[in-house]
């Protein structure tokens, strides 16, 4: 690309426009900053610095060789940072790197336009990573800056001020808003023609598929949002808010995991004959228990977790669309959740007495390794004898033990040894919910009582004005369930024995009441607990929730619902199109009226009169050249068509006298007669 050759095609880009483009580049790159691999960051920084130096007249333009080396370097760095597999990250990184490098050959206006358009594209890419309200607002701001940059590229020297460009961009963005809203609401949603695969499944947040000491403790410090639940009608009390996500019933080498269909089919080939003995996709096929129709009616908006689990309030009674129901009373999505997911769990409840418990399932839930944790096994046997074989009494006495011994609830438990239950029960006596739950389940199983660990979330903040419960990652919790013949699965939360407030108040209040041994409180905790900030945060999150629910989740289904609500007929689609078309017509005509008005008002009476004359002559085939004055125009017509010219000449000279002669006050009578004379031509 020869710079000289280009100059012929397009004028050079001004320093002022370059400044806008640099600002836009920094702003647009910020939201995707943490996507970029660390290897390319120095390159991008170097490029920008170089461009700034050129701007100050301190740097030189890189020649072709340097540019080729830079491009090769950037590809090398991208591959080092991200590997060879193609991913969305790679696409975005290539885009952003190219965006930065292009600045180094931005000489002409045409180049500048390309840079600006890449900027718009990167803005769109940033929208893939977060669709929160704040992000959306920021991206609109980015678009504003980019529009200002485009304005700056084409501005004449006297228009070059931040005020002029900013005003222009602001007006333009504001003008597009109404149309954007109409198009958003009414344009039918089509499924994507192609889908970006999201290969980065390592980005799991929240609960993990296995349970090891320490997992939940680290999680509980995160203030990230896990999900929001909106209720219609009744709301559960704080101590009923057990959000069930995963059920761990397999124990191996100190690690708890979930039973898979393959495992039970392999272990019990005679009894587990079909998939529906372990998991079903349609609620009608459930034969494991009976349902009652008196549960809570609620919707959950789940943040991307990277896993399949879908939290439900209490045991899940039946499957919902695109999900699988497991015999462990939990549901799972068909694919990992990488985008916000809105779903409505079944409002039915399981009748606990009706739950069936075949022998093989009982075996699954009592299996333990043959050896290990001998102290705890011995202790459990003692308790079992004391409670005369009643699992409920045994459960209560374990809780009593937790309560009366010197057990501490801590966010940073010590590392346990090989016999981790023994270590926890008799040596350290410090731990988080998972330690209590897993020890409880271990001891129950050791005496033959079916037991399992349930993890999920517990509690959540109530936003009363929206009927919404907001659950954060720090609300993650683990509890236990034991099987009692004739009563079904009974929930035991051993954590309540040592720290009952943990369940009733939530973690924030506990920390503030000094009930929690805490070595390191995150700074975020202190920041969260001033009243004003709390109020603002609640308001903001309420706003964010409404944004998520009514804008981001406004997809095919919700749109269809809304349209039906609006038009109430089966032919809503045609109504939708009619409204869309009608609004377009209104918009266009409004635009046309404004356009005409603004143009008309700038013209003087004489100019309007002249234009009407010009129109008439244009119909006869005589067009005035731009640089042709009225007299010259009349002379030319005279030459080409003497008959017309003879009629025209006196009129035009009258026009000239009227338009250019004494201008203090317009001779109205003369103007009117001139007007009629022109209309007669």
């Amino acid at each position, binding site marked *: 690309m020869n710079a000289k050759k280009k100059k012929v095609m397009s004028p050079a880009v001004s320093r002022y426009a370059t400044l806008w483009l640099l600002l836009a580049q920094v702003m647009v790159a910020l939201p995707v900053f943490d996507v970029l691999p660390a290897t390319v960051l120095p390159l991008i920084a170097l490029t920008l610095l170089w461009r700034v130096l050129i701007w100050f007249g301190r740097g030189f333009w890189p020649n072709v060789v340097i540019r080729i080396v830079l491009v090769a370097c950037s590809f090398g760095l991208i591959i080092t940072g991200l590997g060879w597999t193609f991913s969305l990250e790679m696409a975005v990184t290539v885009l952003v790197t190219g965006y930065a490098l292009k600045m180094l050959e931005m000489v002409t206006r045409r180049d500048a336009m390309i840079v600006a358009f890449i900027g718009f594209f990167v803005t769109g890419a940033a929208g893939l990573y977060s669709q929160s309200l704040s992000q959306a607002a920021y991206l609109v701001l980015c678009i504003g800056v980019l529009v200002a940059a485009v304005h700056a590229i084409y501005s004449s020297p006297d228009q070059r001020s931040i005020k002029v460009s900013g005003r222009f961009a602001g007006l333009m963005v504001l003008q597009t808003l109404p149309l954007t809203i109409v198009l958003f609401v009414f344009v039918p949603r089509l499924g994507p023609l192609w889908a970006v695969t999201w290969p980065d499944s390592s980005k799991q947040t929240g609960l993990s598929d296995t349970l090891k000491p320490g997992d939940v403790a680290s999680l509980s410090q995160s203030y990230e949002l896990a999900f929001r639940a909106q209720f219609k009608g009744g709301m559960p009390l704080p101590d009923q808010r057990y959000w069930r996500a995963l059920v761990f019933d397999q124990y191996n080498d100190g690690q708890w995991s979930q039973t898979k269909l393959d495992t039970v089919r392999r272990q019990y080939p005679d009894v587990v004959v079909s998939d529906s003995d372990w998991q079903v996709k349609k609620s009608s096929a459930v034969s494991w228990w009976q349902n009652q129709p008196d549960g809570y009616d609620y919707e959950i908006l789940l943040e991307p977790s990277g896993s399949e689990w879908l939290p439900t309030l209490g045991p899940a009674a039946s499957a919902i669309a695109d999900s699988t129901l497991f015999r462990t009373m939990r549901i799972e999505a068909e694919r990992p959740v990488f985008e916000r997911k809105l779903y409505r769990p079944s409002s039915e409840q399981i009748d606990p007495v009706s739950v069936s418990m075949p022998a093989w399932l009982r075996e699954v839930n009592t299996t333990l390794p043959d050896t290990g944790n001998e102290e705890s096994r011995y202790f459990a046997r003692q308790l079992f004898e004391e409670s005369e074989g009643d699992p409920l009494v045994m459960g209560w006495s374990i809780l009593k033990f937790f309560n009366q011994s010197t057990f501490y609830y801590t966010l940073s438990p010590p590392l346990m040894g090989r016999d981790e239950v023994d270590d926890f029960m008799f040596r350290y006596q410090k731990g988080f919910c998972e330690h209590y739950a897993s020890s409880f389940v271990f001891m129950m199983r050791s005496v033959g009582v079916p037991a399992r660990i349930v993890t999920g979330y517990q509690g959540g903040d109530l936003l009363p004005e929206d009927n919404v419960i907001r659950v954060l990652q720090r609300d993650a919790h683990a509890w236990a369930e034991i099987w009692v013949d004739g009563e079904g699965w009974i929930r035991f939360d051993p954590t309540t024995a040592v720290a009952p407030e943990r369940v009733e108040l939530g973690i924030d209040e506990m920390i503030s009441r000094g009930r929690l041994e805490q070595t390191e409180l995150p700074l975020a905790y202190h920041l969260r607990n001033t009243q004003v900030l709390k109020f603002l945060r609640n308001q903001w999150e309420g706003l964010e929730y409404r944004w998520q629910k009514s804008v981001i989740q406004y997809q095919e289904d919700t749109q269809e619902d809304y349209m039906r609500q609006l038009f109430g007929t089966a032919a809503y689609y045609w109504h939708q199109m009619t409204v869309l078309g009608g609004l377009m017509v209104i918009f266009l005509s409004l635009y046309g009226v404004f356009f005409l008005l603004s143009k008309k008002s700038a013209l003087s009476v004489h100019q309007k009169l002249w234009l009407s004359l010009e129109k008439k002559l244009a119909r006869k085939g005589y067009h005035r*050249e731009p*640089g042709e*004055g009225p007299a010259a125009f009349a002379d030319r017509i005279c030459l080409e068509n003497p008959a017309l010219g003879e009629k025209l000449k006196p009129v035009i000279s009258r026009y000239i006298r009227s338009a*250019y*002669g004494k*201008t203090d006050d317009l001779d109205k009578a003369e103007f009117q007669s001139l007007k009629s004379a022109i209309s007669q031509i």
Partner: protein
Amino acid sequence: MDSIIKNCLESMSGVIRGKDNEVRLAICCFLARGHLLIEDLPGMGKTAMALSFSRLLGLEYQRIQFTSDLLPADILGVSIFDQSASDFQFKPGPVFTGMLLADEVNRASPRTQSALLEAMEERQVTVDGEARMLPKPFIVIATQNPVFQEGTFALPESQQDRFLMQIHMGYPDTESEKAILKGEAGRLCLNSLEQAMTAEELLLLQEEVDKVSASDLLLDYILRLLKATRSEEHFEVGLSPRAGLALLQAAKAWARIDGRTYVVPEDVQTVFLPVARHRLTTSKHGISPGELLARVNVMV
């Protein structure tokens, strides 16, 4: 008054053959209180035209032949010690006159050029710390050879700006040239020219030019022209507000010559090239001032 102008034009056409438009432009320039720069190759009748005007307008006439060793004092005058009065006496230079012909102005050194050009703008001369007014009217007709000729010092842009108009003589058409060869024009006829106007009449005409009106419609057209010259693609430097005033004044003078009391767009178009051409430098990929005139819309 109209007859005076007509007289002038007719008399001139006898001396300078086939250059009616240039003559008209020159008179227009004087009526607009401007100075005139005539640029062309040697022998095209520049000096003859300047001489004719001095006779026609009946102004006191001085001529300076610019050379590379000409000094400012040669133009402005010097103070000489008078022994009888034992005091310095100021001897006015040739600049103290009604019409000054500065021949081949670009052959003098820049220092001398600027002495003249300052006098043109200020219409007064300061020598030995004393300001001396120049007579009214004061008109400078400068001739210059194209700058690519040997031994010339190009006038800087700032000084070219002092001339209201710059006109080119150009070769005469065949018929006119034949008349010149026959001796029916040129220096011989020049001597027989009669004065067609007095200095007072010229001042009166200049005042009449000021009274010519320009409507908003016309001013908008001038503004469009000025704006178009200021877009950086076409010209390196656009027209200054002073150039805009000059353009309007020249257009008014042209309207007056036509006997009108108001300016029409054609007046502006006629004087645009002589007024603007020497003030504009077309940039590498720009358009010429003439093309600009064709592009800017006259009416809206």
